[in-house]
């Protein structure tokens, strides 16, 4: 490849600049949060003494212990159920023949285009009449309903990559039933696909805000972390920005951890997908 040194340097500088822009807002609230609360901060100030007091304050005043726990319960339940159901459905679509197979698949896929902003109004009133409003189920159940479209497509593709191979055929010849083939043959080799799906669904579930805002309007104990953050940031508007910054970091922390460990998988999942078709 022909390349000039100037060109190389220039491209790297552009990427470096873009990376700084990508990280700056996050870094700026980190710096802000590390100041002692009440200190007047402006602009690019780097804290002279590092204080974690903002985090303590946010934790106490913003109900974040409760909220992070609630978010974790919601996210784990949503991921576990969605992944399990997606594995089952994806497996059927990938390996079995049955009437209406394509029709059913297209219907399920159409769910990917469904904005849940459009469903939030009926969901609110449906759950109100069922008495589920303000319970964690009110956000868990719809999230599972929205996630299975994506999950089923994902698992079907993953199983497809496997089920054309000799493994499944050999098992079929051995007279294994469908359940055994899934459990003993396909699942053991589909670990990475299941992990990627879980990570993505965790991200969606953790970051959800609108469902929680509408469907958990009154129950503080069930509030998820993004919801608690928005209340905390809203009530104190014009108040203590450094404490709000600390609260935001508390909410972002679990997602960042998952991202750091699963980063490659996220990016791979998105890019390999886009290159197909």
């Amino acid at each position, binding site marked *: *490849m022909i390349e000039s040194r100037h*060109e190389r340097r*220039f*491209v790297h500088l*552009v*990427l470096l600049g*873009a*990376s700084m822009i*990508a990280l700056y*807002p996050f870094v700026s609230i980190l710096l802000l949060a590390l100041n002692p609360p009440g200190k007047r901060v*402006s*602009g*690019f100030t780097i804290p002279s003494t590092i204080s974690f007091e903002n985090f303590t304050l946010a934790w106490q005043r913003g109900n974040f212990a409760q909220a992070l726990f609630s978010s974790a319960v919601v996210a784990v339940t949503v991921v576990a159920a969605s992944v399990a159901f*997606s594995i089952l459905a994806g497996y*059927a679509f*990938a390996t*079995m*023949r*049955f009437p209406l*197979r*394509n029709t*059913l*698949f297209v219907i399920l896929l159409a769910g*990917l*285009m469904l904005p849940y*902003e*459009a*469903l939030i*109004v*009926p969901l*609110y009133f*449906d759950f109100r009449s069922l008495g589920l409003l303000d319970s964690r189920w009110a956000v868990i*159940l719809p999230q599972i309903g929205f996630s299975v*479209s994506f999950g*089923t*497509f*994902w698992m079907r593709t*993953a199983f497809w990559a496997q089920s*054309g191979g000799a493994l499944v055929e050999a098992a079929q010849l051995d007279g294994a039933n*469908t359940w055994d083939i899934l459990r003993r043959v396909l699942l053991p080799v589909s670990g*990475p696909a299941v*992990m990627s799906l879980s990570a993505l669904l965790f*991200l969606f579930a953790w*970051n959800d805000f*609108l469902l929680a*805002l509408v469907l958990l309007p009154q129950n503080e104990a069930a509030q998820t972390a*993004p919801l608690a953050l928005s209340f905390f*940031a809203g009530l104190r508007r014009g108040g203590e*920005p450094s404490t709000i910054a600390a609260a935001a970091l508390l909410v*972002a922390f679990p*997602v960042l951890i998952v991202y750091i460990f699963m980063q*490659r998988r*996220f*990016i791979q*999942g*998105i890019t*390999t*997908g886009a290159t*197909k*078709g």
Partner: protein
Amino acid sequence: MQRDGLAPTRAPLRPPQLSRPSRPARPVRRGPSGRVQPVAYLYLLPAFAFFAVFAVAPLVHAFKLSFYEWNGITDQVWVGLDNYVTVFTDPHVRAALWNSVILIVFYAVLPICVALVIVGLMARVRIRGRTAFRAVLFVPTILPLTVVAVAWRWVYAPDGPLNFGLDLIGLDFVSRAWLGDFTFALPSMGMVGTWVTFGLVFVLFAAGVQKIPSQLYESARIDGANMVREFFAVTLPALRGEITVALILTVTAALRNFDLVFVMTRGGPGTNTEVPSMFIYRSVFQIRSIGLGAAIGVILMLELLAVNLAVLWYRRRGDLSA
């Protein structure tokens, strides 16, 4: 070999399912052949049950509600298409719809253009630390939008870093309360959208560019193509598939935008940053006009459907003529 992460966020929207049933590219895919297996329905049951109850049923209910006038308590009154008429005549709702269209420029057009330029530059040289750049640039896409909103509210604050920086370089006459400014509130919000979607778009394009055979660039250069010609002759056509996916994802994000507005501006100042999803929220909790909220939801859904189909249609047509 174990291939993980084969599926994309939105790839299913692309032709495979439209042009099914056979996938000739896949080698030995015997899978669903042989006899019919009714047990399949048992495997589908849980997923479809949840999908039917929590996605399809609310959708039907939304359609129904959109034809009624209802305050959430008293009896529902059938009003036909009145709510839809309101959507297109009420200045407040129209402002919200129009804003969401403007946001497409910031969420989709801008990041795609910038990413294309950067990726076009990258195509010509070997990048050191490619994966590190990718990982860092992707961070804004994964953060909760509520956190993003809090961070940018600080950046844009009257005494925040942006104004501080502007003052520092002598542009103090530019600095202002960005999110409270009637002219700049919407573009400021839009730039946050650009910041969020750029990482996703960049990652898609960077992966696409890596697959372009370097011989193409070499022969372009032998033909005397300069950087710009090379970009339009080689890079851009090769990225058509990635651009399709990027458009679908980013336009969807633009039209659905709620979290940023709710935390950053609540639609203000005035109705300057009002968006459809914000209005849906208001219709339940403030205005108490449930039918109107449902109607806006239906419109929003149709809008997204139209955009998706338009992009896909354009893509398929392009493929045929290519």
